């Protein structure tokens, strides 16, 4: 990148979709009134003690298996000690020396092909509360509903060499988390958070420069822009003969710059030590296999299978597998109607458009797989034309009625669409050249044969009189 090499590492925090918090039974539901989902444990009250939520471990193992990590057989929790109002105990329960998972990798698509980005570790920890600063008064307001919500921290190797790779890694990790059903992946709402480490070196130089840490990037675009800015900032410093300071930078999205977080605070000494209130976790093969058996097909595997089995191009597989639910929807359709490309087209265009317009996800969509396939089949039979189908689909999407219902209520229950019938008739005429010749040379009685064929092809739904007229017209062209 203009004479400089870059390395980027990402630290991602994923908020897990458990019912209750990691160390107490308070609900993890969001959107509740402040401090209404708290208890002595997550408020850090005197005498309260943590008890580990088994599901947190299940989810952690699930992620570890999905990315090919080694699952620890014994792991322990540790205390990370520091003072902040949203940290109720004055320490965070996390993992330090023996994390749940080590190693693993995620494949990302780059211009040069597939690149494996390594993962250093995945560990379990608890989230802190939320602090809101007052704009005018010298106060901050703390809500502990989020304190104690389970987090998985995923630390990558500093293996990404440009910002596109970083974003691709983040996208793929997010998709894996969502496929596994353990995180909802929302960066805007903070259930998926990303921090980055960046350092650069001049091409040809052997050692990388000082690393800086980047925080406050709450969307893919912001991750990309922040990284680009920070890399450029490093390069500028080095070009002017300076040295990059090791510091934490905050991305300011409105100004488009990174700003140093360095304050008068002394550098943190977290004084990690093993958490005495929690006993060690021993994970045996049976537990791991149990979790392994619940693993769904992962995004990359599913894309590959769609390509192979349904002969779909990469673009299609990408769109169709963007969520597990959408991919399931697609496969349900293909299971009912053997038209993989056509169904793909319909989903990529009409279905996606409807979902966007309604602002819903596929799980709330009124058009069920059997309804979509029913519609597409009707086109195939010549019952309706392509353009009419789009219209009917729009009505299906808003009312939830099936194609059959709509067509019957609209029309006469018969195909009266000239174009449709023309298409069917031409096809039949082309398929029966002998009969056509015979008709044209005077055997007009064969009209009945052709009309019969049209009726057969449209499963009796064609309007016979209209069909007859159209066939006659076509034969006598």
């Amino acid at each position, binding site marked *: 990148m203009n004479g400089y090499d870059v390395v980027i590492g990402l630290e991602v925090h994923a908020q897990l979709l458990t019912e209750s918090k990691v160390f107490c039974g308070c609900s993890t539901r969001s959107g509740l009134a402040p401090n209404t989902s708290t208890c002595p444990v997550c408020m850090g009250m005197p005498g309260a003690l943590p008890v580990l939520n088994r599901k947190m471990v299940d989810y952690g193992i699930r992620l570890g298996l999905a990315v090919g990590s080694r699952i620890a057989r014994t792991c322990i929790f540790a205390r990370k000690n520091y003072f902040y109002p949203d940290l109720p105990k004055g320490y965070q329960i996390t993992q330090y020396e023996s994390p749940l998972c080590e190693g693993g990798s995620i494949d990302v698509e780059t211009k040069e092909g597939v690149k494996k980005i390594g993962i250093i570790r995945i560990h379990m920890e608890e989230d802190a509360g939320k602090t809101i600063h007052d704009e005018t008064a010298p106060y901050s307001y703390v809500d502990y509903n989020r304190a104690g919500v389970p987090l998985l921290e995923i630390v990558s190797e500093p293996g990404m060499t440009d910002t596109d790779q970083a974003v691709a890694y983040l996208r793929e990790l997010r998709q894996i988390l969502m496929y596994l059903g353990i995180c909802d992946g929302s960066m805007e709402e903070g259930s998926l958070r990303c921090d980055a480490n960046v350092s650069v070196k001049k091409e040809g130089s052997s050692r990388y420069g000082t690393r800086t840490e980047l925080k406050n990037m709450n969307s893919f675009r912001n991750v990309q822009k922040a990284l680009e800015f920070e890399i450029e900032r490093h390069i500028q410093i080095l070009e002017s003969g300076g040295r990059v300071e090791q510091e934490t930078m905050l991305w300011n999205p409105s100004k488009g710059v990174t700003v140093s977080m360095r304050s008068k605070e002394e550098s943190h000494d977290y004084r990690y030590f093993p958490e005495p209130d929690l*006993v060690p976790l021993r994970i045996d093969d049976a537990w791991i296999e149990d979790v392994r058996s619940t693993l769904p097909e992962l995004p990359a595997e599913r894309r590959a299978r769609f390509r192979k089995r349904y002969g779909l191009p990469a673009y299609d597989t990408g769109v169709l597998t963007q969520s597990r639910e959408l991919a399931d929807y697609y496969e349900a359709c293909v299971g009912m109607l053997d038209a993989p490309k056509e169904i793909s087209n319909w989903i990529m265009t009409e279905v996606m458009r409807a979902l966007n317009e309604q602002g819903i996800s596929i799980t709330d969509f009124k058009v069920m797989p059997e309804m979509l396939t029913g519609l597409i089949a009707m086109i195939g039979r010549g019952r309706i034309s392509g353009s009419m189908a789009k219209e009917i689909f729009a009505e299906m999407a808003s009312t939830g009625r099936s194609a059959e219902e709509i067509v019957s209520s609209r029309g006469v229950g018969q195909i009266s669409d000239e174009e449709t019938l023309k298409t069917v008739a031409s096809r039949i005429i082309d398929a029966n050249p002998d009969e056509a010749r015979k008709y044209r040379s005077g055997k007009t009685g064969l009209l009945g044969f052709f009309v019969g064929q049209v009726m057969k092809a449209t499963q009796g739904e064609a309007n016979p009189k209209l069909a007859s007229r159209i066939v006659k017209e076509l034969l006598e062209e």
Partner: protein
Amino acid sequence: MLETARRYRKRKESPVEETRRLLDAIKRDTLNSFITIDEQGALLSARSAEDLLDREDAGVLAGIPVAVKDNICTCGVRTTCASEILADFVPAYDATVVKKLKDQGAVILGKTNLDEFAMGSTTTTSCFGPTRNPWDPSRTPGGSSGGSAAAVAAMLCAGALGSDTGGSIRMPASFCGITGLKPTYGSVSRYGLVAFASSLDQIGPMAATARDAAVLFDAIKGHDPLDSTSALHDYAPTDLEGIDLRGVRIGVPKDFFGPGLNPDVKSAVLSGIAELADMGAQVVDIRLPHVRYGVAVYYIVATAEASSNLARYDGVRYGMRSGESGGLRNMYLQTRSKGFGAEVKRRIMLGTYALSAGYYDAYYRKASQVRTLIADDFRAAFSLCDIIAGPTTPVTAFRLDEMVDDPLSIYLLDIYTIPANLAGLPALSIPCGFDSRGLPVGMQLMAPHFREDLLLGAGIAFQDRTGHHKVRP
């Protein structure tokens, strides 16, 4: 306690009468053993206990008045840990042990005095003033459960709960001539016990007799799903008849009888051991070579854990708050500097230092390794004996004005009690005699994990034979 229970059932006395009598006595108490008297709550419980006793299924604790150390949370009743920083803290939840006592109909009279945050051996660091020893009010009752010990010795309650991290139940029990049990680590729930050192703390019973201590222990022991360190051990109810000491091997460690042990204490303890031998026990010499490092290990591990456990006292969510106008950092500094006493600050600093970057391996890790060696010593010893006996403390109750302002000399008072906490073993202190001034001497018995039956059984048998525990101040 059993006597009182019998009198209730024979209608010779009612819980309300007994409770009123004790509440009056407590109000007249000059020993400063109580911080809070819960008159209303106590009388309410006493009345419910009377209803309970009318039914057939009332347990032995129904209507029995007990006191609870003020570092154990009681719902709706101030729980201060004898600290300014929690002086007005009222928990909205009960500690599990308190809930158990209430469920069994016990009457909780109030909260007893302690060293601030249970850090101390004299009950002189309380922000509510020192508690005095009923045997001689110019002397300390020991600590940190000094309030509970004094209250029991002065017969202001039938029994009390204390907590023990390095000897805080046994040491004051010894100084006040009563019986105190530090149970096996994990056998009594810590939920609701304000944490000092998480891997060492245990709540335990303090009473006039080993039998009463056993009754209280049975009432509070058991697995608690709210405490991850709670043991899954299935205890049988303690046999209140006492055990037959014939064939029981009593190990006597030379390491607990070195120089530094007061001669009166030494002779009283040795005669206690002789008494056990008289009852049929076999005395065996054992060695515990690493216990001499116990105090050093303890003051690193306990203070390290404490420095972290006390970080939550920051003036944000509860407790005292000071220095707001100077911003957040100033609030932290002012609150904690004003709210904590000198000993607590000393231990927080020590613990912070022991965990800090560059020192973790030399201090915390090293101490934790030596802790393993101490536990190994006991494992080896218990292959040669069933109970280990020795003195509870090196001295008897000393005068409050004799106290040297040197923390280390106070720390060394716990030299015999600390090892049991480090190894998680159960340990009992029972009165075994008196010194030349007539002050009580305590003998400590230790057993393998979950063998409180041996300790209480031996204690009951010993007390059925001897009369030291019957002498009142």
